[in-house]
């Protein structure tokens, strides 16, 4: 059993479950397929020697964010009656533009040559926490630190928007 076969199998499964997220009618079912997709993407990361990213992907996306999704779904009232209706024109134009995008992307990726990825993937220690941490605190220390501004702004913003105000309740 060659490694190529595993890669194709994983890729096919990932695409299949990602498609099921959009196709399935019931929202809870599509969320569950989304969790499956995240696990499969993690498996793809492991095939690329990115072990740390794979674990983080499972913890953050499959763990935290998906639980949030399920809670939101439970709070929403999802009945069939109040679904927004889309007109035929919108559907047809979405279909045409979506297929055109797919066509272009397929044509591009069919004979694209990806640079500089092959030689890095072959090193088995490439994606370990040690190497990643070294890179983050030497070469990429500035984006790493600057992203803290992003997080604190998002945090302050979330508290600002979500906190109850006394005068609004009155």
């Amino acid at each position: 059993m060659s490694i190529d076969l595993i890669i194709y199998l994983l890729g096919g499964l990932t695409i299949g479950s990602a498609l099921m997220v959009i196709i399935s009618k019931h929202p809870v079912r599509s969320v569950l397929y989304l969790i499956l997709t995240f696990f499969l993407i993690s498996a793809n990361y492991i095939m690329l020697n990115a072990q740390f990213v794979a674990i983080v992907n499972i913890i953050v996306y499959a763990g935290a964010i998906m639980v949030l999704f399920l809670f939101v779904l439970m709070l929403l009232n999802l009945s069939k009656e109040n679904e927004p209706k889309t007109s035929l024109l919108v559907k047809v134009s979405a279909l045409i533009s979506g297929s055109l995008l797919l066509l272009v992307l397929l044509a591009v990726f069919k004979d694209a040559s990806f640079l500089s990825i092959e030689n890095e993937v072959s090193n088995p220690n490439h994606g370990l926490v040690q190497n990643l941490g070294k890179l983050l605190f030497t070469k990429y220390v500035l984006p790493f630190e600057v992203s803290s501004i992003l997080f604190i702004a998002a945090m302050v913003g979330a508290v600002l928007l979500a906190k109850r105000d006394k005068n609004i309740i009155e």
Partner: protein
Amino acid sequence: MEAIIILFSTGIVSLFIAMTRKPILVLLTALIGVTVTAIVMSINWYTPMQWVKYDGIETDYFTIIYGATATLFSFLFILIGYSKFSKEVYHTGDYIAILIFSLCGALCLFSFTDLFMFFIGLEILSIPMYVMAGSNKKNLLSSEAAMKYFFTGSFATGVLLFGIACVYGALGTFQLKEMSEAIAAMKNSSALLQVGMILILAGFLFKVGAVPFHFWGPDVYSGSPNVVTGFMATVVKLAAFCGFLRLFQLGFNGLDGFFVEILIAVSVLTMFVGNLSALRQTKLKRLIAYSSITHVGYALICLLVKNEHTPAYLWTYFFAYGFSIVALITVSMIVNDENDDIDRYKAFARTNPFAGFVMILALLSLAGVPPLVGFFGKYLVFSSAIEQYPVLIIIALINSGIAIYYYLKVILTAISKDDNAEKSTVSPLHAIVLSISMFGLILGGFVTFWVN
């Protein structure tokens, strides 16, 4: 770099000072911090301080000019908004800090040299804006604006990221310098690179609100609190334009081939759609939104011209545009009308002569009337492109003509007679901002000459 650190600490400090429940202290901290940032930036220009060894940020001439402009406008908007911010004592610090964080993102966009800093800067710029759009929690329109901006904005970010991934796949580097070398060394252009560039371009056109991606603009602009609308129209647009101009010029060696055709089409469409929709608006902020779409159309002409002066012309354009927006937003804060109808400004120039005068100046500057700064912005942009794209400039001139109609309509409303009109009170802060923007509008043309 130092400027970003100082700004960030200013934001944090004003968050903590807000705990004293004294809004005036927060205002003073923020103003001092922003001023110190501007001073440090100008010192940095003469003696570069290089104590952080990382090549993700590089300060050049345009970083300073753009940075100083963005800092000035943020300063003015914090001043304008203070009357609103200080009403909610518990949140004054949050509002001001979030605006300052957004300015940090703008400074990253003025100086990045690799795609990491570019992307993080763009996100730091946008995420505080999603929050600020919804900061008026009592108003449903404000929440709607925040939701719309957040959903469409995050979708555009996704498209942009996908484009960056494609570009990385084609070039194998994130550094702008190495990217441009890799493109120059390429024998025949790769399709992957072009798809990536188109997706990045789509993300850019969304962020600035150019026509196929402009639908969020009017709703978000009219729903958000006035100060936030002004901040979005000036600082955010300036930063997004500068960031993408840097990316396209330094990273992609300028746009050519069919990108030029795309940009010309987008520019023409943007001008017409913005202008023709603005003709029928009855609310001031929606009018500002559509007119800002039109101005994006004019500014897109800058991206078409491959010229070492392009950043200066773009800067002039947004410098001129910003003062008008500052003045108009101040006037709308003075009138303080929930519905924001233009009819509410009836006889405004008669009851409040000074504020009305500045408002008329601002509208004339937006229309591009000669002695005012708006004329210089338009003149530089149009004259730089007239040899290469004469038809485009003629279309732009026609559009400037159409625009005069709706600006004049507002001016006529403001000077018309109405016996029942009451005098609005102008707070001292608003009077200061109005005088600064009046000086900017009248004397700004000389500043632009000095810079150019």
